[in-house]
């Protein structure tokens, strides 16, 4: 291993730029003559738009234009789309209501877009927006997930019973039969709380129109600029792809919320032409709370069947998923194909049947958020398994081990073919890390101080690098899920890698360069990673679902292999040897059995000057591209153990220890991977203890600021003990599985299992706030007093 190659904990190249304030985010971009957009948003969760009077507002100082849904319709601008088709049990397609970028006829959630004001300054746009008179016909709102299908209030005329689809997966007959034969059945009702993503950088967009070229440029906070271009072109119809450039510059976190194509960027690029000026919009934090796609929001009943020895026989799951007021870009895939196929967890469960009803409500759209479906599945599985172990009087670690998948490949009853793993190894290492044997003593010590101590397990599995394209296409995806890369070697041997992946905190500029440095034997600083611009990068599917390592880097490997192959041809001419005798190692092309060699930089120069070969026999230049389509998902897995202490007097939960042992396959940069694990756990702990988006019955978001929506802070968290086991992924050339979401997937059940262990009962929901834990602890104390 070299100091900068694969496996080296290289410091992040991009951090100097970020921590010295030199990052260039969308809001840092200011085009000459730029105007500002302000969105008038609905204060009502559900209302008809009887009249929008913009006359007085249009006459306000600085106003360049005010546009509504009628203008969108007149310009034949298409609605926002949901790019994954789900079919109900009866074969009918999901019921997608219209989703115009500016409301037409009706608003469906607080924050829905009523009109846009474009003015010289943001303050002028805001002033004018206040002068718009909207006559709302306020309607009752439906917000509750569990009862939405029974509500008399209908969000979309196209969707009776507010139902988007009734979907299912698995063998119902086999599952029901297994339950009948079971000796023990564990049942659990579970709520997976709604979350607001809250990336540090709020969303932003600058739309620009070049009248001479007839071409648009959109700068936007996107995790996948090529997908944004495709949707804006092919579906929304802003401009053909060759006349629309999408640039996603530095992006300050996304967690999924910046995958989607939203109303605001659509409107900014559309109105740039209408007002003949570049138009900027930057979300404020309140807008982010109201209109960024939220995450999770499931209500589930789950059952696990076991035989007399505690062997799992079957699982039955019924989930209602709240998708909000409109179908966001990938919303339909999250509670279906990103959820139910993970319900087998790390366990050998012969039969699984899962039903999912997706509902509309008068709330912000819900879509993928760090983990996307997999945290919801893992929470169901790991809570069920923990409770089953308790009911059977079995040690939770031993009960898990008894049921782990041991032979690979393993076909689950819910689509997935697990390729490799060693779940017992991760569990063993995690038990050692947390000192499981010492826990009973620590619990007694806590009890002496009047505290309740608990320990909770989470043995999670996730599926990353969702693929292959043909398979996801057959499941309803509107896109392929490959990745592309181009490796451009310059004549002096420096290298640009153009990747369709997009870094918004993951450190691609470092890890991708490490790969190139490792493969080509060139210094790290000679490698630049280019991403986030559809005019520079050939194509791409972007970054989400922990796919950049497994899929994005595999594409780079393919292109690097081509570069080396071409380099060998060049070297053969220069070194006057047969191509078959040329080796490439440590940055040098050598002739087998001789000391003749050509270093990589010289080879690049020779490729470009083309003096040593005939340009008809071998093309000059050294630049290669590749598309990589995976053959399978990857399956990162691991075991997290949380140990915590509850003060029953205040309800405060302190996480005392956290052991995380993950199998991410091969790792490029362990420091960055560890950082991803830390961040993921923090978000998972946030969901379990602190975060929860709440709408009241009128559809007002009562947690619309950091005063009421509690984000995890450093002092809410312990120092994590992070370890790894490695079973290399067999389906990609680097053996990578992916690490970006693991912490957020693993953490919530680990925390809740530890809390319920401490409490001695299961009666607690997320977020387990001090108030909720205090109330639950009173139950524990009175039971203890009775004993």
């Amino acid at each position, binding site marked *: 291993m070299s100091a900068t190659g694969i496996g080296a904990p290289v410091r992040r190249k991009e951090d100097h730029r970020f921590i010295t304030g030199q990052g260039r985010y969308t809001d840092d971009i200011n085009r000459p003559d730029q105007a500002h957009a302000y969105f008038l948003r609905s204060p009502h969760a559900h209302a008809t738009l009887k009249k929008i009077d913009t006359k007085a507002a249009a006459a306000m100082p600085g106003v360049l234009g005010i546009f509504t849904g009628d203008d969108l319709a007149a310009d034949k601008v298409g609605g926002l789309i949901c790019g994954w088709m789900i079919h109900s049990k009866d074969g009918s397609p999901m019921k997608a209501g219209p989703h115009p970028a500016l409301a037409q006829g009706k608003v469906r959630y607080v924050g829905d877009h009523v009109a846009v004001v474009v003015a010289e300054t943001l303050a002028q746009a805001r002033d004018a927006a206040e002068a718009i008179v909207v006559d709302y016909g306020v309607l009752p709102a439906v917000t509750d997930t569990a009862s939405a299908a029974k509500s008399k209030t209908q969000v979309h005329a196209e969707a009776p019973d507010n139902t988007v689809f009734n979907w299912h997966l698995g063998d119902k007959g086999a599952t029901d039969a297994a339950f009948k034969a079971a000796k023990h059945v564990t049942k659990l009702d579970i709520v997976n709380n709604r979350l607001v993503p809250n990336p540090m950088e709020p969303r932003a967009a600058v739309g620009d129109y070049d009248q001479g070229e007839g071409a648009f440029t959109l700068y936007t906070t996107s995790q996948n600029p090529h997908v944004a271009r495709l949707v804006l072109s092919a579906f929304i119809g802003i401009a053909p792809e060759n006349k629309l450039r999408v640039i996603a510059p530095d992006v300050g976190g996304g967690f999924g919320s910046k995958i989607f194509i939203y109303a605001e960027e659509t409107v900014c690029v559309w109105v740039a032409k209408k007002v003949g000026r570049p138009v900027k919009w930057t979300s404020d934090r309140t807008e982010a709370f109201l209109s960024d796609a939220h995450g999770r929001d499931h209500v589930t009943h789950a059952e696990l069947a076991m035989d007399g020895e505690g062997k799992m026989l079957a699982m039955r799951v019924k989930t209602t998923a709240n998708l909000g007021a409109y179908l966001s870009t990938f919303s339909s895939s999250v509670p279906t194909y990103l959820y139910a196929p993970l319900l087998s967890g790390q366990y050998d469960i012969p039969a699984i049947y899962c039903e999912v009803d997706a509902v509309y409500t008068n709330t912000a759209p819900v879509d993928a958020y760090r983990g996307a479906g997999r945290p919801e599945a893992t929470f169901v599985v790991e809570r069920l398994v923990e409770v089953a172990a308790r009911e059977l009087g079995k040690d939770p670690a031993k009960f898990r081990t008894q049921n782990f998948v041991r032979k690979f490949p393993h076909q689950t009853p819910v689509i997935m073919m697990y390729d490799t793993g060693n779940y017992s190894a991760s569990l063993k290492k995690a038990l050692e890390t947390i000192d499981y044997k010492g826990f009973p003593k620590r619990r007694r010590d806590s009890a002496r101080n009047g505290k309740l101590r608990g320990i909770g397990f989470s043995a999670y599995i996730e599926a990353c690098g969702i693929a292959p394209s043909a398979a996801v296409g057959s499941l309803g995806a509107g896109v392929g899920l490959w990745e592309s890369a181009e490796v451009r070697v310059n004549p002096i041997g420096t290298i640009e890698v153009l990747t369709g992946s997009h870094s918004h905190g993951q450190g691609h500029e470092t890890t991708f360069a490490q790969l190139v440095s490792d493969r080509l034997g060139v210094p790290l600083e000679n490698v630049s990673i280019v991403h986030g611009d559809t005019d520079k990068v050939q194509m791409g599917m972007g970054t989400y679902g922990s796919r950049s390592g497994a899929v994005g880097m595999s594409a780079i490997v393919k292109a690097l292999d081509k570069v080396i192959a071409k380099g060998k041809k060049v070297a053969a001419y220069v070194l006057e040897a047969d191509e078959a005798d040329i080796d490439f190692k440590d940055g040098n092309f050598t002739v087998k059995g001789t000391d003749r060699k050509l270093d990589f930089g010289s080879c690049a120069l020779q490729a470009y000057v083309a003096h040593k070969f005939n340009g008809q026999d071998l093309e000059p230049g050294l630049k290669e591209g590749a598309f990589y389509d995976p053959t399978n998902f990857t399956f990162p897995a691991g075991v997290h153990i949380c140990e915590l202490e509850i003060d029953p007097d*205040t309800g405060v939960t302190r996480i005392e220890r956290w052991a995380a042992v993950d199998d991410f396959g091969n790792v490029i940069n362990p420091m960055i991977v560890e950082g991803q694990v830390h961040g993921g756990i923090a978000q998972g702990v946030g969901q379990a203890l602190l975060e929860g988006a709440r709408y009241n019955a009128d559809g007002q978001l*009562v947690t619309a600021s*950091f*005063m009421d929506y509690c*984000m995890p802070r450093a002092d809410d968290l312990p120092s994590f003990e992070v370890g790894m086991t490695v079973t290399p992924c067999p389906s990609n050339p680097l053996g990578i599985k992916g690490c970006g979401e693991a912490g957020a997937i693993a953490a919530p059940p680990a925390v809740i299992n530890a809390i319920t262990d401490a409490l001695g009962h299961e009666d607690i929901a997320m977020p387990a*706030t*001090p108030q909720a834990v*205090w*109330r639950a602890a009173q139950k524990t104390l009175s039971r203890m007093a009775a004993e």
Partner: protein
Amino acid sequence: MYAFTYHRPATARQAASLLAKKEDAKLLAGGHTLLPTMKQRLASPGALVDLSSCADLKGIARKGRNLVIGAMTTHAEVAASPEVQEAIPALAYLASHIGDPHVRHRGTIGGSVANNDPAADYPAALLALGATVVTNKRKLPAEEFFSGLYETALDEGEIIVKVSFPVASKAGYAKFRNPASRYALVGVFVAKRGSEIAVAVTGAGEGGVFRWPEAEAALKARFAGKSLDSLKHTAKGINGDIHADAEYRAHLIGVMARQAVAQATGKA
């Protein structure tokens, strides 16, 4: 934010005259409540009179049996002050736990007291310590000063000059933070001056800061946390929200009161 004019007088007298002259003028005494509210367009003063350059409103001094703190003294200055730490360590402790470092270096005691946020920390200290609020017009005992949620006895154009705290023989403050905002969900300040005991509660009252007479009586019998063990504050008159309902808050008043006494008696 709407447009407004900005003024920065050098003395309290100049500030008072600006306040009287300018239409819809508001005093800026740190701005950690006012400025966010203005940014959200929920407040639109015509003029801001920034007190940050009024040297006569700043400073900390021990004057006989009293500790006197200028209205424009920041929380960070109170927290770090040797005079405060020596005279009323619980007050320094309270100041050191207000908000975050940004807030503590901008926010002032006068601004906090004048705003009388029901979740602010200082009102509990003023009430429990029997402080006097000195304005440019008069002296107001804390008992009379705080009159309701965000309401005080201050008249139009009246400016707080300083707050005078009688030095207590024992004092302690404990707060339970709102997990999200980290304001006081419940904060209890306990003070003992001779035979007088005061227990003041912030964060929990429907009408803002209040005293807990039953706890005071119990502590008068014996100034120890144990004296409060059998006491329960009623949930009546206690506010509730999504973070804590009245029952939980009422319970926390007891817990925080015991912690405050433990701190006051050096047993924390």
